[in-house]
């Protein structure tokens, strides 16, 4: 694929390293001459353009019309949004991905049609929350405006389901166990799978049945 990255800071740099090792063709655009010189020395076969990536002429020079993906990786949300917007509407780029610097600006990314706004702050906050929490249950994802939720449940010693086979469990009807993580092993469960203490269970459930599901797996709320 041909990928154009706007912004050669830490994110742009790491991304270029990774994508180049996967044999993608790359172009990086950055406003700083020093950054561009550094990138040009560091990478072989990388097109580096010194200029404002929200300037359509610079984007033309970067052959954005040939790009499969454009990445907005500058530290400025307004620049990332405009770059993706021009790439999409003027150059017909299929996929635009951007880093959201301030989570409060996320809505504007959506309104302006950026395909994948990556809100790193919120992602990190969720990971930190998960690592810091002592709770046995973690909500991983909610889909369809929160109606379907995917949760992770750690099976404690006092759980009523320990050493039971899945087929013998009474689970709420609108929920399903997707997988069981046991140490480093990932198990796709069948009716004969037994649940052991310290298993991590990933389950999907309608939001109305979430409490009931958790109750039946860990015995308390």
């Amino acid at each position, binding site marked *: 694929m041909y990928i154009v990255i706007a912004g050669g800071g830490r994110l742009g740099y790491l991304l270029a390293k990774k994508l180049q090792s996967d044999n993608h063709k790359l172009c990086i655009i950055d406003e700083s001459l020093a950054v561009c010189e550094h990138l040009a020395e560091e990478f072989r076969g990388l097109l580096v353009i010194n200029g404002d990536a929200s300037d359509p002429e610079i984007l033309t020079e970067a052959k954005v019309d040939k790009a499969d993906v454009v990445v907005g990786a500058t530290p400025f949300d*307004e620049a990332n*949004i405009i770059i993706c917007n*021009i790439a999409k509407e003027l150059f017909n780029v299929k996929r635009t991905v951007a880093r959201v610097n301030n989570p409060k*600006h996320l809505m*504007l990314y959506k*309104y302006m049609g950026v395909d994948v706004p990556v809100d790193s702050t919120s992602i990190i906050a969720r990971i930190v929350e998960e690592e810091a929490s002592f709770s046995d249950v973690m909500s991983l994802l909610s889909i369809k405006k929160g109606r379907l939720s995917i949760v992770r449940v750690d099976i404690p010693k006092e759980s009523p389901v320990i050493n039971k086979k899945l087929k013998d469990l009474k689970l709420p009807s609108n929920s399903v166990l997707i997988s069981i993580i046991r140490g480093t092993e990932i198990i796709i469960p069948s009716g004969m799978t037994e649940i052991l203490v310290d298993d991590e269970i990933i389950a999907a459930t309608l939001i109305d049945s979430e409490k009931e599901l958790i109750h039946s797996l860990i015995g308390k709320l």
Partner: protein
Amino acid sequence: MKYVVIVGCGQTGRNLALELSQSHNVVVIDKDKQALDVLGESFNGKTVVGDALNVEILESAGIQEAHALILLTGNDNFNLVIGKVARRKYGVEKVVLQVYEVKKKKLFSEEGLIIVNRTYLLVEVFKKCIL
């Protein structure tokens, strides 16, 4: 009586706000409280301190009801993003914005945005004065 939202309280924003507030409903947004304080007591409108890229701030300034939005921050991309969203998402009838880069003026003019470029204006005025 029109409902006008102005983003950016620099020299132009301030003078415009003072004048328009005599006969219209005016709300001025700026991230810097001191810039808004300069409006003084003769300003007959509302002020909102905050980041206009945050839709909550735009909505608290009443963008949904605005007849006109005037964007005068010194940042082209900032003005363009908010201008486009105001047209598309909030259906603001008149969106006027300042853009320094002439190339962007051409690119975004078709979207129902009224784009004002200082250099272009000055060149036209000078031409008229001479010719």
